[in-house]
C-alpha cells in the first residue's frame, strides 16, 4: 500500500517524461535535412518510393496524426529501417544491446566495488580527523576530471607498446570465447569505470558525512558501540540511500551507449552503431537509438525508485 502510493505518481511521471521524449525526438525527425522519407530510405530515393513512404506514413496528414501513427508503429516494433542494410533498426540495435550491457555492467561493478568502500572510508576518516585533504578528495577530483577518451587513448598507447594480456579491438562475443572477450572488454570497461568510481566515491563520502551529523550516530556512540559496528549497522545502510540514485543515473548513461569508449576501442555496441549511423547519414538509426537510450534511462531510474523505497522505510510517508 505504502509502496503503491509512493510508486504510482512516479510511474505516471515517468510515462509523461517518456511522452515528452518521444515528442521531442519526433519533432527532431521533421527538422532533419531532407525530410522523413530520406530518413527511412536514404537520400538517393526514387520519387515512386518517396510517394509510397509518404502514403504509408501519412506525411500529408497533420503532425498530430503523423505522431500518433509513428508511436503506433513503434508499439508494433517498427522503429524504421536502416538505409545501409535495409533491415529494421530495432533488430540491429537489439543485436548490439548485449555488448553494451556487458560493457556497462563491467564498468558499474568496478565503479561500485572501488567507489563505495573508498567513499565510506574517506567519509569516516574525514569526520574523525577534521581534515578535508584526504585520499578520497584526491581520487574523486582526479577520476571526475580525466575524460574517458583521454584515459582510453593513454591506455591504448600503453598497451600498444606493452601488449601484456589485454587487446584493443578484435571483439569476440562472450559466448564464443569468454577469455578472449574479457581481453577486449576489460580495458574499455575500466576506462568507463573511472568516472563512475569518482562519482560514487564523492556521493558516498558526502552521504556518509551527512549521516554522521545525525543524532542517531551520536546516540550509537553514546551507547558505547564500536566504530566498526556503527559503520556496519548504521552508516552503510543510511549512506546507501542517496548513492542508489546516482548509481542509477550512471548506469542509465552507460546503457544509453558509451559512444566515445565504444568508438575508441572498436566495441561493436549500441553507441558505435549509432555513431556509424550518423557518419553514414543513416538517421533512422540515430533517431531510434536516442529514443531507446532515453527509454532505458527512464526505466532504470524507475527501478532505482523502487530500490530506494526498499532501503529507506520513510519513503512514501507524507511528512
Amino acid at each position, binding site marked *: 500500500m505504502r509502496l503503491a502510493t509512493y510508486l504510482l505518481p512516479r510511474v505516471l511521471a515517468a510515462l509523461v517524461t517518456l511522452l515528452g521524449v518521444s515528442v521531442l525526438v519526433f519533432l527532431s525527425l521533421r527538422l532533419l535535412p531532407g525530410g522523413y522519407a530520406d530518413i527511412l530510405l536514404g537520400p538517393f530515393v526514387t520519387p515512386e518510393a518517396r510517394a509510397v513512404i509518404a502514403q504509408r506514413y501519412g506525411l500529408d496528414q497533420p503532425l498530430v496524426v503523423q505522431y500518433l501513427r509513428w508511436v503506433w508503429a513503434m508499439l508494433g516494433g517498427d522503429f524504421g529501417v536502416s538505409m545501409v542494410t535495409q533491415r529494421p533498426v530495432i533488430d540491429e540495435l537489439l543485436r548490439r544491446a548485449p555488448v553494451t550491457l556487458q560493457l556497462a555492467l563491467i564498468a558499474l561493478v568496478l565503479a561500485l566495488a572501488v567507489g563505495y568502500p573508498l567513499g565510506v572510508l574517506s567519509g*569516516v576518516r574525514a569526520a574523525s580527523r577534521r581534515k*578535508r585533504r584526504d585520499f578520497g578528495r584526491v581520487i574523486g577530483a582526479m577520476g571526475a576530471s*580525466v*575524460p574517458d*577518451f583521454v584515459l582510453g587513448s*593513454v591506455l*591504448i598507447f600503453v598497451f600498444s607498446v606493452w601488449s601484456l594480456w589485454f587487446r584493443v579491438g578484435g571483439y569476440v562475443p562472450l559466448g564464443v570465447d569468454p577469455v578472449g572477450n574479457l581481453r577486449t572488454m576489460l580495458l574499455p570497461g575500466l576506462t568507463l569505470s573511472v568516472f563512475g568510481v569518482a562519482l560514487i566515491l564523492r556521493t558516498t563520502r558526502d552521504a556518509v558525512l*551527512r549521516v554522521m551529523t545525525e543524532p542517531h*550516530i551520536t546516540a550509537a556512540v553514546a551507547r558505547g558501540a564500536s566504530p566498526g559496528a556503527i559503520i556496519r549497522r548504521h552508516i552503510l545502510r543510511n549512506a546507501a540511500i542517496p548513492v542508489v540514485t546516482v548509481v542509477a543515473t550512471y548506469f542509465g548513461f552507460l546503457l544509453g551507449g558509451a559512444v566515445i569508449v565504444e568508438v575508441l576501442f572498436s566495441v561493436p555496441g549500441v553507441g558505435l552503431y549509432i555513431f556509424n549511423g550518423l557518419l553514414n547519414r543513416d538517421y533512422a538509426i540515430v533517431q531510434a537509438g536516442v529514443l531507446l537510450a*532515453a527509454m532505458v534511462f527512464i526505466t532504470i531510474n524507475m527501478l532505482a525508485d523502487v530500490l530506494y523505497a526498499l532501503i529507506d522505510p520513510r519513503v512514501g510517508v507524507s511528512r
Partner: protein
Amino acid sequence: MSGLARIARRGRPRPNGLTIFGVVTLGCLLFLGVFGPWLPLGDPSRIAAGPRLDAPSAQFLFGTDELGRNFLPRVVQGIRSTFLLSAVAVAITAVIGTLLGMAAGYLGRHTDQIVARGADILFAFPALVAGLLVAAIMGPGQASAITVISIATLPLFIRVVRSVTLGVAGRGFVTAAEVAGASTLRVMLVHLLPNVMGAVIVQLTYALSIGMIIESGLSFLGLGVQPPNASLGSLLRQGSAYLTIAPWMVLSSGVVLSLAIMSVNLVGDAVRDALEPLKGRPLT
C-alpha cells in the same frame, strides 16, 4: 544542540593544498587562454614551422603535428576555445535554468509541473547520444556543442534552484514582500535570487566541468569544433591518429585538458565547502 554548538559549526574553512593547486592551475590556464594569442609561443597555424611529427624539444615544447605545426600554441588555442565554448554555454544555461527553477519553485502548480517534467525529459537523454542527434539535425560545429551542453546541464540548474526556492518561498520575508504588494517578478529577482545564488554558483562550477567534458568529447568525435580551429578535444582527435608514432600530441593535450577540468572541479569543491560545510561526528 545548544546555541553555542551551532555557532561552532560555522567555522571558516582554511584553504588546503588541493584547493590552492586548483586555483593556481585554473589561474594559469585562464591566463594562457586569454592572453595566449599575444604570448611569444609561436604561430598555431603556420604549417611546416618544423619537421613533421617532431618529438618535443627545446624549440617545440609539445613537439609538432603531422603538418609540422608547432603543437604548443595549438594547445593554448585549444584551451581558449574549450574554456570559451563551455563557459558561454554554461552561462546561458545558468541564466535560463535559474529563472525556470525559481519560477517552478515559486509559482508552483502548473508551472512547476511543466518545468519539472521538462527537466526530466532533458535529463533522460544521455549527453553524447543526444549529441549525435543534435549533430544530425544542426550539423557538426560549435552551435551543436553549445546546444548539447545546455541540454545536459539545464536540468541540473533547474532542479537545484527549484528545491532551494521551495525552501525559501515560505519564509517570512517573502510573504512580507507579497503582502506589501511586490510583483511576482520583483519577488523573484529581489527576494529569491540572492538566496539561490549560492547554490547556483556551486552548480556553475560543476556544470562548467561537465560542459568541458562534453565539448571536448564532441570535438574528439569530430562533431564539435571544426578545423582549422582547435579545441583540446579536436587536438586529441588529431593526435589519436598518430598515437603510436607521435604520442606527445595526445599526451600533451590530454594532460592539459584533464588539468583544466580538475582545476574547475577543485575550485567547485572549495566553493561548496565554504557555502555548505559538512561535518560529521567522529565515531569515538
